């Protein structure tokens, strides 16, 4: 139970970064930390004590396997997380070129 609590606390740290910070790069870092913590939580649920990785081989005949279904879901979720982080960073570069700063309170003016 302590492990679940720490994992959700990591999620809250990321949420604190998204809500409070004024720097755009810190907001992107907070969002990425939130994604990492959700992936970790899904794998934590599927763990069986004394289990091995879900791969059959000739030496391993009758063992207890860890759950393979959350691993299949999280495998695609990691690549999707990279895609969204890269898109956010591309937008951040454009904002820096136009306004000259990463501060989100100064980019509210609609310049032509």
């Amino acid at each position, binding site marked *: *139970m*302590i*492990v*679940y*609590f*720490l*994992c*959700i*606390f*990591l999620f809250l*740290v990321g949420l604190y*970064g998204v809500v409070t*910070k004024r*720097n755009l*790069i*810190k907001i992107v*870092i907070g969002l*990425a*930390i939130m994604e*990492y913590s959700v*992936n*970790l939580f899904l*794998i*934590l*649920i599927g*763990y*069986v004590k004394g*289990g091995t*990785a*879900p*791969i*059959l*081989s000739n030496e391993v005949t009758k063992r207890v*396997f*860890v*759950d*393979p*279904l959350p*691993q*299949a879901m*999280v*495998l*695609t979720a*990691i*690549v*999707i997380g*990279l*895609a*969204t*982080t*890269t*898109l956010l*960073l*591309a937008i*951040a*570069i*454009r904002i*820096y070129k136009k306004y000259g*700063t990463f*501060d989100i309170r100064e980019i509210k003016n609609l310049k032509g």
Partner: protein
Amino acid sequence: MELLLIVLLVLMIGGAIFSLEAKDLLSAVIAYGIVGFGLVICFLLLQAPDLALVQIVIEAITLIIMIAIILNSTREEIKTKWPKTIVFVIGVFIFIGLFLYFFNRTTGTLSAFGEHVMRMSKAYILPGAGKTGSANLVTGVIFDYRGYDTLGEATILFTAVIGVLTVLRLKGRK
């Protein structure tokens, strides 16, 4: 095993808090690498080698891109000012109380850590190798039982690449 996971998670939380509070942006990005690489060790301890391979390479590529972006710009940090009223402090305490209450409600129904009752997964593990023919069960689940989700993931990656090319306005610049 659980003790190792707890130590790693505390290290990751420390790295995350330091990354969000650092004054210099370069320190923030390098401390963000602690969270990513700690996650790789957590995946290895939880017996998921596929995920560890993917996570370590993608974390390295993300760090390279972020450092290249930050070195091109100013690296100063902008300070936030906390409001010092009493309503704000009461609001924080109410938030913490609600979080602890809902955490108790939801994880009380989950089984304890390590005692997973695999009701649905038995239908995938036992006939899995015979029906798909692959020794790696995770690959069999991704490409045979749930092939549609992999097609959706490939589409999202494709769309993200198109989005990056459009935002940077590399094509159609005439």
